[in-house]
């Protein structure tokens, strides 16, 4: 698997692209910096001064500095300036994620390898609600939509989040956080259309019901256009989606915060580009209570209900009802111990309507998950050295008890400088597809068969990282990892003479290692640049005794190099220019060539109410593929452009 010489020409093409991005800005160095003058600010009242938005590298760094892990944050402004229309497009902005668009409604998203449409090693949460299906332990991205305007930030932690977050956070956690309703008051409306976007329209209204009680109500709908087949004709996979919901936040006292939110959606994705669309709909409710008992102790109690329904329109349907209740308490003991402990109960009722030859048996299954977590962040040397040890114990319906311990060191030799190291164990517990899925040739003859012997995949991670803020305006982070995997899913042939049924086994093991470099820089007050580079190497092999039909390669298809740079500029005349350039090196099986992608957004604030923007996406190629799934047919993503008008009252 050698790098072809072609890869290097791509790198040069990229460098040229970047110099163009940066070079074109040199012309602006003579212009006034667009900041309010002293006389202007002096005339403002205290309230007005406190309402001015300030971007600060150090604000993020303060939170990131405390974290002994490879965490990256995508802010609301990063998303707005990138022109991202949907959540997966916004996730492209995290340099430590592999994000590949498969077709109009499907994406392959993972961290630190093992990317696949059915990627199962990433835990994704939206406002505390876990969004994965126990059918295959992955995420249906076509039903994870939100009003991007109301996203506060997206935290992406690459690396095992087993202790704090639980099983299936083997390679990372994506934590999507929406804004508190007190920050989303007023009327927001947007409308957009373009060459790849039939329409996008949203309305949101937020207000105050009482002194410490605020709310918002929203509705959004969009239809993404067809992608392209490899024979250059249009694939009929266009995708309409509608979603609405509300959120209420209440602070009854200085020590209590309550939040309630609910969403309901209905979409008709068509990844197979067939004549009949899939229907995907659902609704969810999340309630949360945060209570500060004292300066040294606080807790959070959260409960949610999530219902999803998917009708594949060929007779197969899937319904999932999840009920989850979670309690976490944090308490400081003396000066040296910061202890977090908690418990969680989750019940998932999964019901499918089987086809004669394609079935999950039993069709109706209740899965129970109980877990407890305990973590102590100990101060070994005040302000210099911290040691965190933690353990999560889970009991699930398939493999009984699972243990996910971790230990982390944080060393802070100077105020703007952190070195961290971590040792963790994480597991990916079986999903229904591993144990209970059957594909038949005839009703008596299974071709693929789930097995009760399928166990959890395990990983031991060794990580070392360094975070530094050399100047007030520059923050750099470097994370390296070495992951050892065992019991990765394999496809084992059945007995002779026909070697069927194929069962899922745990016959693949191996290592991955790599480096994630990222940085944020406020180059000037009107120009900030952020981005990163990720390097990933995998060495997977088939275990003795396993006859894996894919020789260890089915679970993943990952690029060795990945590069992202996002530049945001505030220009005179109330205009903004956002540029995102990304490079993804080639995938091997199935092969996808390396590519450069570039998105550009030009925004113009007409006045206090109206904002116009034009966004060009995937500008560098007429069309290009990013990921080829095992099914449906391969697609390519077109160059596209769209225009949007936004009103904020």
């Amino acid at each position: 698997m050698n790098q072809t010489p072609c890869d290097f020409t791509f790198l040069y093409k990229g460098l040229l692209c970047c110099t163009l991005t940066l070079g074109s800005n040199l012309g602006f160095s003579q212009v006034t910096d667009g900041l309010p003058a002293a006389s202007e600010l002096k005339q403002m009242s205290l309230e007005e001064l406190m309402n001015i938005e300030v971007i600060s590298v150090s604000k993020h760094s303060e939170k990131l500095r405390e974290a002994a892990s490879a965490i990256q944050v995508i802010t609301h402004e990063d998303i707005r300036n990138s022109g991202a229309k949907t959540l997966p497009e916004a996730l492209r902005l995290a340099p430590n994620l592999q994000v590949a668009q498969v077709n109009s409604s499907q994406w392959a998203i993972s961290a630190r390898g093992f990317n696949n449409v059915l990627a199962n090693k990433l835990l994704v949460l939206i406002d505390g609600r876990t969004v994965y299906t126990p059918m295959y332990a992955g995420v249906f991205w076509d039903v994870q939509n939100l009003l991007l305007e109301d996203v506060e930030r997206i935290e992406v932690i690459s690396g095992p989040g087993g202790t704090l977050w639980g099983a299936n956070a083997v390679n990372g956690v994506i934590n999507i956080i929406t804004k508190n309703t007190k920050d989303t008051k007023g009327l927001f409306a947007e409308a957009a259309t373009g060459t790849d976007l039939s329409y996008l329209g949203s309305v949101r209204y937020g207000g105050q019901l009482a002194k410490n009680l605020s709310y918002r109500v929203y509705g959004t709908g969009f239809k993404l256009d067809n992608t392209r087949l490899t024979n250059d004709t249009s694939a009929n996979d266009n995708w309409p989606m509608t979603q609405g919901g509300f959120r209420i936040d209440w602070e009854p006292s200085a020590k209590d915060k309550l939040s309630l939110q609910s969403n309901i959606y209905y979409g008709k994705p068509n990844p197979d580009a067939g004549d009949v669309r899939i229907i995907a709909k659902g609704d969810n409710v999340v309630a949360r209570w945060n209570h500060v008992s004292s300066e040294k102790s606080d807790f959070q109690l959260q409960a949610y209900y999530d219902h999803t329904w998917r009708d594949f329109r060929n007779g197969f349907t899937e319904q999932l009802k999840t009920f989850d209740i979670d309690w976490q308490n944090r308490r400081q003991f003396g000066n040296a111990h910061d202890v977090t402990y908690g418990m969680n109960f989750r019940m998932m009722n999964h019901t499918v309507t089987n086809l004669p030859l394609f079935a999950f048996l039993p069709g109706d299954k209740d899965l129970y998950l109980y877990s407890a977590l305990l973590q102590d962040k100990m101060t070994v040397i005040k302000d210099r050295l911290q040691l965190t040890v933690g353990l999560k114990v889970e009991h699930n319906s398939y493999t009984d008890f699972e243990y996910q311990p971790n230990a982390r060191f944080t060393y802070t030799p100077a105020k703007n400088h952190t070195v961290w190291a971590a040792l963790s164990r994480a597991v990916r517990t079986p999903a229904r597809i591993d144990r209970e899925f059957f594909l038949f040739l005839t009703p008596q003859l299974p071709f693929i068969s789930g097995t009760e012997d399928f166990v959890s995949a395990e990983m031991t991670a060794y990580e070392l990282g360094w975070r530094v803020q050399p100047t007030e305006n520059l923050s750099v982070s470097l994370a390296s990892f070495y992951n050892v995997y065992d019991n990765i899913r394999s496809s084992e042939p059945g007995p002779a003479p026909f070697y069927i049924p194929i069962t899922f086994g745990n016959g693949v093991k191996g290592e991955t290692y790599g480096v994630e470099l990222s940085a944020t820089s406020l180059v000037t007050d009107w120009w900030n640049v952020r981005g990163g580079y990720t390097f990933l190497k995998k060495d997977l092999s088939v275990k003795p005794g396993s006859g894996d039909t894919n020789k260890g390669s089915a679970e993943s298809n990952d690029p060795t190099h990945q590069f992202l740079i996002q530049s945001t500029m505030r220009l005179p005349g109330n205009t903004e220019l956002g540029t995102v350039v990304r490079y993804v090196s080639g995938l091997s099986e199935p092969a996808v060539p390396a590519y450069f992608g570039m998105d550009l957004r030009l925004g113009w604030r007409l006045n206090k109410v109206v904002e116009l923007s034009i966004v060009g996406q995937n500008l560098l190629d007429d069309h290009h593929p990013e990921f080829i799934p095992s099914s449906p047919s391969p697609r390519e993503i077109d160059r596209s452009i769209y225009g949007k008008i936004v009103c904020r009252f």
Partner: protein
Amino acid sequence: MLALLCSNFTGTGQSSPSLERRLKAVFLFNFTQFVQWPQNALPADQSPFVIGILGPNPFGVYLEEIISDEKVNGHPLTVHYYNQVEEMQACHILFVNIADIKKQEETIAALKNRNILTVSDSYDFLQKNGMIRLYTSENKIKIQINLEASKNAGMEISSKLLRLAEIFTSDKKD
């Protein structure tokens, strides 16, 4: 990629403070209008009202620009820059910009019996008995006030400022 970023720093003048810094400078000026000093602490006659910066100056020339031509109770405003507490003479507001936590503590202790309003953006400034903390949260500047510390120094903070600030109370029970 690091090289690309570093090359951008030739020419970004340190003289142009960020928006965050400018806002903090304006707040410093505003505090002169919303806080009352005890009678005996006010400057005599035409002596200036002093805003002091202890530690590296984060405001460039911006603070001086703001206060030029402004007066507090008929006294002109001026900015003085100090490296050590010992250098300080007459001073009414002090912006403490010292990174070292131990030195910060010593500074606040040394100023104990003087009627000086201490302001900083340092994380645990109020725990150390500093009076006002300016910090950025959710992309906006917020004010935290240690009311007790300010009262002990004889300051009276206007309710117009108090109601916009988060009042810090130290937890005496340990």
